[in-house]
């Protein structure tokens, strides 16, 4: 069974804080994704990584950065959290040659 884990289920941070969201997958997948999910909107891609140290911007990268130092770990960084970054953040992974994405349980981030 593929397992994608995220470091926190719930997080509350203050405006201006630096925030790290961690994601780990155990299936040796090359591809990892960070999405945010907001009411009334579909999942929106923030960043994608197709290999260690490789990344591509998704549809809404502004205000975010990512780090992929090891294959199994993909981190999302909010350099200076703002209230409009309050959201559910979902990490996913996918193997090369496969189509199915496996999601983590999500981190609900509130920025006050």
């Amino acid at each position, binding site marked *: 069974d593929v397992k994608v884990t995220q470091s926190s289920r719930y997080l509350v941070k203050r405006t201006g804080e630096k925030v790290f969201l961690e994601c780990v997958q155990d299936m040796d997948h090359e591809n990892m994704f960070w999405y945010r999910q907001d009411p009334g909107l579909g999942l929106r891609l923030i960043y994608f990584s*197709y290999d260690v140290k490789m990344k591509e911007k*998704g549809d809404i990268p502004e205000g975010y950065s990512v780090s992929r130092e090891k294959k199994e770990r993909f981190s999302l960084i909010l350099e200076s959290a703002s209230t409009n970054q309050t959201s559910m953040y979902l990490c996913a992974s996918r193997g090369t040659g496969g*189509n*199915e*994405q*496996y*999601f*983590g349980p999500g981190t609900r981030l509130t920025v006050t």
Partner: protein
Amino acid sequence: GESVGLHLPTLSVQEGDNSIINCAYSNSASDYFIWYKQESGKGPQFIIDIRSNMDKRQGQRVTVLLNKTVKHLSLQIAATQPGDSAVYFCAENPPSYKYIFGTGTRLKVLA
């Protein structure tokens, strides 16, 4: 509570009845489609997928139908159970790493 379900269309069905959830997809080049189930407070869970060279695929109690002519996807759940209550959304995968996700439908199963 889980706010992802706010503002979503809702389908209410009686326990034991069949459910049909619909999705219109956007990219005629998409060649792979997935249905996900998302329960309150959890990440999306894969239900069933279908490739564009098929028009129907069956799983356990679930069937996905694909109509490429009108870019329409549907998920049928047979003998709906209380545990099926969740938000369901489709995803399409054009030839790239990107996925396009629908906004979802909330399924409520009435006892």
